[in-house]
């Protein structure tokens, strides 16, 4: 048998031996819980439920653990709590909505609110300009001419 074929068989056998215990395939129930937990293998930003690396060093044991706890009749939340108790809140896929981490969720909307205030102030400052006072001092014929011209100029604008 050529050397390369031996190598290929060796690679496939090695992969097979890794896959002996479990293929890493999840049930829908396991995926539901795993969707709340972050994959901490540092190679992706997916959840344990979404991570597509079949032999992911982090997700595989987590999925097995979730499945085992579900088989023991544990609720979804108690399984998540158990993982967090073991690994800290880093194990959660999203920051908890309490304490300092609440800021992660609120800051984008605070920023929008702040932006709206800035726009409101900007609009107010632009509309407060003493334009009308100056215009009142101009001869009405001149003003009409300008008005005609403005209308003409802006008629073709986008």
């Amino acid at each position, binding site marked *: 048998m050529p050397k390369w074929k031996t190598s290929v068989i060796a690679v496939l056998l090695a*992969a097979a031996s890794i896959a002996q215990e479990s293929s890493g395939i999840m049930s829908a129930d396991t995926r539901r819980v795993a969707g709340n937990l972050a994959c901490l293998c540092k190679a*992706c*930003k997916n959840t344990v439920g979404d991570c597509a690396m079949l032999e992911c060093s982090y997700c595989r044991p987590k999925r097995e653990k979730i499945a085992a706890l579900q088989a023991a009749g544990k609720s979804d939340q108690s399984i998540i709590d158990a993982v967090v108790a073991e690994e800290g*809140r880093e194990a959660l896929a999203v920051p908890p909505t309490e304490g300092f981490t609440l800021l992660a969720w609120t800051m984008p909307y605070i*920023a929008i609110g702040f*932006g709206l205030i800035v726009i409101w102030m900007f609009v107010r400052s632009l509309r407060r300009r003493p334009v009308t006072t100056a215009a009142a001092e101009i001869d009405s014929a001149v003003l009409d001419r300008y008005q005609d*011209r*403005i209308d003409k100029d802006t008629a073709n604008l986008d």
Partner: protein
Amino acid sequence: MENVGALTILLAFCFAVYSVVASVAGKLGRRPFLVLSAERSVYSVWALLTVASSILVYALIHGDFRLAYVAEHSDHAMAPIYKFTAWWGGQEGSLLLWSWLLATYSSVVVFQNRRKFRAMMPYVTAALMTTETFFLILIAFVESPFKVLEAGRGNVVEGVGQGLNPLLQYWTMVIHPPMLYLGYVGFAVPFAFAIASLATKQPGDSWIHTTRRWTLVTWMFQSTGILLGAGWAYAVLGWGGYWGWDPVENASLLPWITATAFLHSVMMQEKKGMMKVWNIVLVSCTFFLCIFGTFLTRSGVVSSVHAFAQSPLGPFFVTFMAIGIAATLYLILSRLDYLKSEAQLESVLSRESSFLFNNLILLASCFAVLWGTLFPVISEAVTGEKISVDAPFFNRVNIPIGLFLLLLTGVGPLIAWRRSSVESLKKSFFWPTVAGLALTAILLGAGVRHFYALVSLALCTFVATSVMLEFFKGASAIRSKSRTNLVIAMVELTHRNTRRYGGYMVHMGIVLLFIGFTGKAFDKDATVEMTPGQTIELGSYHLQLTHTDSGQNENYRWGRLYINVSRNGRDLGTFEPEQRFYIASRQGASNVAIRRGVNEDLYMNFAGGGGQGGKFVLQAYVFPLVSWIWIGYWVVLLGTLICLVPSKSRLLYPRTEVVGIAGKHAKVED
């Protein structure tokens, strides 16, 4: 050769420093020959970096494994094209590419403006060459691409390298990094003009007119780079995702968002003389976000699948950004008197207002992405606790913001400049709203209950209808006058005002992108262990593993599944997902099989060889509507290219002049 390479980088550094000093000194001392010599130095920097880059590429292609960079990123067995792409496959080479592209852009700018903007050009040159100097410091003194391995010092070297990361040995990776870099680096040009306009106290329109085209071209490259990256992730990583909210992906999105905001708000300055400070701020933000993105990729401050190895570059980037931002802020604050608005906002119901909201939402989206990317670092610094901010967070925060932006994409063009009446708005919004609501009713009737999917598709219909009506109304007017057919009338219409109708086409491309994103709500997948002869059902597809095969070439070993696919009894052919093991780098990679379709893709990944009883693991996915993302990109590209074409009707009209406000009577070219 490596000594020549290192020397050329060192010389380029000296010329760049000279160019900065000579251009500023020449301008301040009113010595035009000094300014001219500074501009000639820019060409010299380009020539020297071209030589350095050529030496590195030559070494990569010919396998000069004495060089550490070549040994780490190339191998004899790699195809020549991937040997070439190893130029930007590692830290040092990609920094050299950055520097070379910046030198190329700088040379083009100097050449194009050799007789124009003579007051501003010394500062433009100085700003560009300051950035160049920074990157040359990095490759000359910190991360040199010409480091020689110990074995190279008179010892015999084994003719093998570690090879390029297998995930990078894919065709889109040949063009994805250069496109992104063309985007990143290109934003330095509008920034340089903005700085020059502030320095010369000319913050009026000239820099805007000059840089709008640059920004558009750069934005196009950045869009292309981002979409190529998405296409690569989709086809290579084996899980069918095109966007993972990885910090480095986010870093490429941030300047793209601020540049998009700039391309919109710049119209306010061109047409109304408004938002001058804001435009300077946006251009500066875009530039510094590019530098920030490069910093994120290279400093290791956040963990990322894309990041280069940990390096000592972080403090250099922080220092450069701190000095740059402080200097820019000082210039803006000291020139506020020159940046006052020339016009007033006449009504809240106006195109001007819609641009304000567009900018607000774009910036909010940018902030949300930045905040989510940095929050783990901030949280750890403040509370000492590590926190994960993964894809679900970004999706939950950004989907509502994105949908609101989509709404504005349709609303903005329907509102008139200066002011709109409620009656005219009712008239403009009627058909797009009817179309959006009709589609929602149809989807609800078909059983679709996914809230965001319903909203997204309704908004897509709303925007698409509004864009098509704009084309139809304009083309109908031309057709009735010139008695031609509708298609020719549409071409004529677009040619008459390329910016406006090219812009609409870009909006249409964005709609198609959103349609593709929305398909994600309806994904199906199955992961199964199969033996030859076994079948599975996925949606309406019937998949049968007929047989397997394996082999080896010089570069990698492979194992392959042969999957026969049929749908509703119709044979769709045999697909061959493959698993590879690259010999030099000793890393595995997937080569997925995809049956692409307009309505959905069938995606198959050979995820694992063997198992109990010689089973093979197949991951199969159905991704509805995903092809519309790639179609949408082509439409965005076409629209952007149309925007770059000069309009047939070169309408010259004076900027709206408001009685009572002193201002120049500027001519604006549409």
